[in-house]
């Protein structure tokens, strides 16, 4: 059992070095990771895919830059999918330092829409995205609970004008659009607290179909709400984003990251198993009265 003994006493920094090396290496290797799609994510894709042209989706980008790593891929793939299908978007950012980031993400996506991109051999016609016709960005207001309640009455109540300061009534898209009744569904991307607000103040009160994109850490906690029907769909962390990208046939940030997720998980699984094998080995030796 000397091998495990030495491994146990090994300095933990070798472990870090090993993980960092594997991750950097696999990031540059080109190989494809097949994705197994779960029903929770598929329901979001099929709902959006079945919407007729010109329908409106409320996308709530309620996360901060520090959980951007997992939720930005979701924003990119959902917005691109919606605009490819000529749907229209109302976008809000209810977290304190989120609006600047959300605004920059929208500009990024509309630029990539303008190019006649052929994604991994998939032909998409180029589209010019116009603020006020294809999307409206409402920006940030404090007290997310009151904002969600206010939007149930009328978008103009919490947001008399949009993030750029233009009054809502002068935006062509917002004519005859008053509250949640005129929105096909609400998709909230957030890392926890604001999601609770959408469940109790939003869906609980106005009954619209609600989909969630969550950071990996919070996903497991929201299955009871998916089970009880308050949530109609759930995307969990980078894996959820990769599944959506696979369905929308749009190889993006998440699929790119899955190349590294795979070996990293293999390493951690091996470490847990090795650690425990070493642990049981030393415990068995102790019981046999050997040198501890």
């Amino acid at each position: 059992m000397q091998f495990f003994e030495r491994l146990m006493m090994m300095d933990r920094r070798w472990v870090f070095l090993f993980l960092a090396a594997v991750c950097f290496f696999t990031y540059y290797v080109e190989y494809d990771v097949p994705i197994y799609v779960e029903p929770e994510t598929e329901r979001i894709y099929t709902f959006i895919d079945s919407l007729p042209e010109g329908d409106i989706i409320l996308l709530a980008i309620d996360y901060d830059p520090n959980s951007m790593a997992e939720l930005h891929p979701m924003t990119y793939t959902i917005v691109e999918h919606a605009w490819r299908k000529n749907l229209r978007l109302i976008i809000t950012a209810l977290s304190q330092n989120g609006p600047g980031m959300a605004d920059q993400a929208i500009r990024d996506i509309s630029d990539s829409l303008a190019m006649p991109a052929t994604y991994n051999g998939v032909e998409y016609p180029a589209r010019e995205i116009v603020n006020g016709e294809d999307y409206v960005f409402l920006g940030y207001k404090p007290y997310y609970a009151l904002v969600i309640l206010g939007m149930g009455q009328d978008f103009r109540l919490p947001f008399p004008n949009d993030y750029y300061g233009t009054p809502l009534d002068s935006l062509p898209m917002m004519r005859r659009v008053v509250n949640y009744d005129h929105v096909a569904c609400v998709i909230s991307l957030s890392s926890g607290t604001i999601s609770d607000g959408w469940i109790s103040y939003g869906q609980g009160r106005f009954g619209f179909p609600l989909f969630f994109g969550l950071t990996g850490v919070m996903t497991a906690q929201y299955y009871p709400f998916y089970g009880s029907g308050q949530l109609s769909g759930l995307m969990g962390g980078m894996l959820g984003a990769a599944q959506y990208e696979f369905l929308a046939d749009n190889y993006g940030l998440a699929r790119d990251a899955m190349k590294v997720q795979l070996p990293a998980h293999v390493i951690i699984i091996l470490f847990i198993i090795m650690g425990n094998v070493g642990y049981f080995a030393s415990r068995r030796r102790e019981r046999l009265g050997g040198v501890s």
Partner: protein
Amino acid sequence: MKYLLSAVIVLGLLAGAVWAQESDQPSTAAADTAVSADTVSVAPPAPVGNLRAYDSDNDHGHAVTLEWELSPDDGGGDNSVLMYEVFRWYPYFWDTVQEVRAELVTARQRRVQGTLDVEGDPDDYVKELVSRHTELLSTLPEAHEQYPDDGEFRLVRAVPAGTEKFEDRGPKDRLAEDFLPDYCDFYYRVDAVTIDESVRTPSQIVGPVQSYGQWFNTGRIVVLCFVLVFGLLTILFVQRARSGAELYVRPIAGIEAVDDAIGRATEMGRPILYVLGLGTAADVATIASFTILSRVAKQVAEYQTQLIVPTYDPIVMSVAQEVVKSAYLDAGRPDDYSQDIVYFVTQSQFAYVAAVNGVMLRERPATNVYMGMFHAESLLLAETGAIAGSIQISGTDQMAQLPFFIVACDYTLIGEELYAASAYLGREPVLLGSLKAQDVAKAAVVLFALIGVIVTTAGSSVFQNLFKVTD
């Protein structure tokens, strides 16, 4: 009874009015169809059946709900109904109110930008406009009583065919354009409209109906009962605990660990690190953590070991100082207390954790106690604690962090056990009383769930609907 009587009179009146409307309606319609002879002349659809209007229940007012039966030509007959248009009777007086409102809103906006050029003090001009606007609003109910003269029916909104219910809801903000006043008589009419806009059939007019806010939300009775019963249970058990009744609480593994961990720290003469987590003073987990801190501080004062409490939130810092000071007082060592036992680090999550990790590696505490609200940094703490070789006891109600605490710490209080620990450790009869109240409530919940499943699986959802909360 009063409503019934007035309703009958109104209906009689309405029948006359509708008949009058009916007569002139076809004439205009005929004229139109003659004009658009080339388009397929659509026969006017049958009107909507027994239109009812009533104040929306359980809301803060400013909303009226309309219900009607679909027109026979919607889905059946010659299926010519494309949508329904809801009309409401507006007094002309309403337009003057809107003008003053618009003037007030622009004046206010310009006042904020400082471009309001008006003789005299702009603030007084705005205040005067506000008083005029409120005065006009108060006379709205009289204006609505003059129905049907000096007013007209105006379109509220169009709803697609197939809808049988519509809620005319306006914001409660007086300055909003579509503000819907309370306590005014409203009259409604729903037109069944075909593809050709001009071919339509109005329903009979319904009203007067007033919108007003209710003082009690009947949809939430269940919640009120649960809260009241739970409150009474808490008071009852607290009284029993105060009167000295012995209340049994089962031993919790994590809590015993806290006591002998303090003993271990004293023998080794190394400090104890107590982390209150990232919650604010209003978070329940942090409040529970205060009680455990006061118990730990009292024992530390008695054994004269060193205690380190780095805090994340300013209010928690001040409260913790207060708690530790009184603990040292109770232990009879007020002079040992120094201002630097409890100190504020930073409001940024990870800068705080890095600082606490630094303390762990430098001071090498014998025991780390993490009690309260933790987020992503829990593993960082537990792992560094493992490196520093300290006994680690954790307790949090943040479900996402519990897995890491369970596998990386020696003892973990799972969710509620943290609240039970503050009652058990604090040995306060009062806290134990509240814990017992919770237990009774839990037993009740388990019982209801059991009965509920059996009854609903057997087919009747009566029992389940008892617990339905309509927001």
